[in-house]
């Protein structure tokens, strides 16, 4: 049997960690959570998740941006898809495309709080597939994903 897909959620709001991980677990994912940047980095390094859900406006010693930078500058971790999440995206004019200037700040997708869960699930699926292709674990042929042995 295949390993379940592992998602790490990093957010300083513990209620959010609980509701989001309940949601993802019930949709078949294994979840791990960290309520602080440094813990997030440690957990990511230890667990090598398939995807990271990251609060970018987190106020801890390590912010969401620091976590993103750590992941993107670590050759072993840099291809892990990251979904950035914030309640301030609109106010700050944060958009995914604007994050490209600095490589290590690059997230693959951005969701504003409250997260539209109907849109989140298909996007997670897409990013996971892309992640598999990047890792060389799968190929896409004619729009379909095939595992590579």
């Amino acid at each position, binding site marked *: 049997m295949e390993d379940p897909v592992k998602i790490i959620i990093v*957010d*300083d*709001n513990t*209620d*959010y960690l*609980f*509701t*989001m991980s*309940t*949601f993802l677990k*019930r949709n078949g994912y294994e979840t791990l959570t960290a*309520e*602080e940047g440094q*813990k997030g980095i440690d957990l990511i390094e230890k667990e090598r998740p398939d995807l990271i859900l990251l*609060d970018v*406006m*987190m*106020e*801890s*010693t390590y912010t969401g941006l620091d976590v993103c930078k750590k992941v993107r500058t670590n050759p072993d971790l840099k291809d892990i898809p990251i979904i950035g999440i*914030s*309640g*301030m995206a*609109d*106010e700050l004019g944060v958009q995914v495309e604007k994050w490209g200037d600095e490589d290590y700040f690059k997230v693959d997708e951005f969701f*504003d*709080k*409250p*997260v539209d*869960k109907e849109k989140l699930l298909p996007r997670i699926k897409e990013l996971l597939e892309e992640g598999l292709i990047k890792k060389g674990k799968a190929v896409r042929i004619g729009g379909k994903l095939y595992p590579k042995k």
Partner: protein
Amino acid sequence: MEPQEGLTGRPDNSGIIVDLGFRTILDLLPCYLSIQDRSLHIVFTNENFRKDFGEGIGNLCHMVYKGSSDICESCPVQKSFKDMKVHISEEDVELSSGKMAQLIVYSAPILDASGNVAAVIEMSTNITQVKEIQKELTFLGQSIAILSHDMKNILEGLQGGAYVVDEGIKDGDMELAGKGWDIVKRNIGEISTIAQNILYSSKKRDPKYQKVSPEEMVRDVVGLFEEKSSALGVKLKHRSNPALPVVNLDPTNIRRMLHNLVWNALEACKKDKEKHTHTVVVRSDFHDRFHFKFEVEDNGVGIDEDAQENIFKEFFSTKGSEGTGLGLLVVDKIVKAHGGWVEVLTAPGKGTTFRVILRIR
């Protein structure tokens, strides 16, 4: 027009005195008027100018307006000397009464017979009130931005909580449903705090003073937070100097102000994952002979340097996903309305003390 002194008027057709003499008209103009030479020495002033800035003639413009030996950075008079055009600038000045005022200043060149700039005439209007309204509007805009951020977080909490309740009910897992319901209730609590803060930040009202004991205020507010602090595992204490007299305060506003500071302190403790025990202390004590203070001290995360600068100036929220930046904004507003001020002592990683200093009256 012939230069004339004083009221030498004669009735016109409508019986109104029209010919006042140019000097009188200049004096009557509801603005400050002066003429300056190339070295920025004042050579002429109207009565309004003299009333608020003193005689002025023979003195340097920047000395008279600002008591400064330096020429103003955006001096419009110099510009008019240079390019013979009208220039506008906004300046902060000090009236001879000691009051500060904001002026909008217009300058225009006065040409001599050969077309050179002989002097510059300067006309300015006190726009302090307009500026205050502008500040209020900025404040409003900022409040709305903060509010929208808070609402989004609360919505996230409500939706997430409701989802967990649904899933719990679906599976007959009442423990799960209960957890979801707790989240829903917490977010309802947040809405009520925000709603109160909106009320306080939007209404412009003068404090309604009553004689109250600062100690009682402190005890009231600490009492309100007993449940929240014990849920967070934070020790919440209060210490008041019993010698403090009864003072004139707006108790509703001061309670709100303390409420926001204690709320922030508890949140700062909640965010701190380094220390094992957290304490919030609320104090009331003398500050000096004429002032007393409220202090809210926590050993939470502290505020980093960047945020310190912005904390009141820009009504900045440092709380990330759980921010109610409106809280400090309301604190600032209430304290200012009481004629007091706020001091912030903080060390990142160690904790923060907010000190509110008010006059004993």
